[in-house]
């Protein structure tokens, strides 16, 4: 009989077997709220494991936005759990997770937390173990009182071990 921590470690090890890793980068444009923001850049790194029903990914993400005031910056850093179907040419994608937001104007700063969610689709193109995909999505961010979000497009590449 294994203890609980060992059980969790075993679960993590199983997750790490038969996984793929990937990277995504692209642009976000404000769609709901954030009227004064310009477009921003977004990046994410993830590990992915294939299940029968879907591909589950766990990732870390960041995005950066600026406005006309060059002293201002808005950063988001987040973790996400996502579901997609990598074997399909067109696959829906759903992601969600916690988000840390930091805004800065000169030496003044504010920070706080939110929840992010992404709904969209991607087009899978396979070359042996490599997978390339453009991804189009709506990325929402909320503190359960205010909702705002972006539409975006990313280009991703994944490698399956």
């Amino acid at each position, binding site marked *: 009989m294994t203890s609980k921590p060992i059980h969790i470690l075993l679960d993590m090890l199983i997750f790490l077997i038969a996984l793929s890793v990937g990277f995504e980068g692209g642009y976000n444009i404000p769609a709901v*709220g954030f009227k004064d923001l310009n477009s921003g850049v977004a990046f994410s790194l993830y590990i992915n494991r294939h299940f029968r029903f879907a591909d589950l990914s766990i990732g870390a993400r960041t995005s950066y936005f600026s406005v006309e005031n060059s002293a201002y910056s808005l950063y988001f850093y987040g973790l996400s759990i996502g579901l997609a179907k990598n074997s399909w040419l067109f696959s829906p994608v759903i992601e969600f997770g916690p988000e840390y937001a930091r805004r800065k104007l000169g030496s003044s700063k504010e920070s706080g937390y939110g929840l992010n969610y992404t709904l969209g689709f991607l087009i899978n193109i396979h070359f042996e173990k490599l997978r390339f995909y453009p991804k189009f999505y709506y990325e929402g961010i909320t503190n359960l009182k205010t909702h*705002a979000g972006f539409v975006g497009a990313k280009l991703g590449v994944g490698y399956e071990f």
Partner: protein
Amino acid sequence: MSSKTMVRTGILFILLFAACENNIIQRAASDYFQYREGNWWQLASTQDTMMVEVEAVDTLLQIECFTVSFGGYPKYLFKKPNAISQYIKIIHNFGGEDYIVVENFVKRIELPLVNGNAWQDSLVDSIFISGAWVKAKFYIIGSISGFESVGGYGDVYTIAIKNVEIVILPDTVITDTIDVIEAYAPDIGLVRFEDNDGVFDLINYEVE
């Protein structure tokens, strides 16, 4: 870890998150300055009421700006993504004739609103009238002194603004200082105004 444990952990996380008072998304995503024609805010002190109304767009110095009437006194404001600017004109009367000494836009509030931010902007000019120089200076010192969650309004920013107008004549210096404190709520606008006449709180408004 079983799927039941994961679901329970997820629900607990969301409940804990919902219990936290953290409105950074609201502060970052909302519009605190609803300058659109027809919008109005009615504020009241213990002794008086004050209407703040956005009137028709006017063009000054080739810039389209909103006439915002503060209790009948118009301010000509121009909103950009990085600032709310105000039209300033300082006139000196000499021998029954008006001479414009200073005319331009000055940064009234720096945008976006971020707690602790401070700014200043100034206009300086001079004119030679009847053998003597008349110099005028207008400057604004502003700062965001804080924000607080107000029920029904959301996170309200408090902004302190000092307006100083100085006119330097050959034989005298005229200085006029006005200190105001304004509080703005997300997607509503002005909810509190404080000057020498008292503290005015929002009692009614209409924004589109």
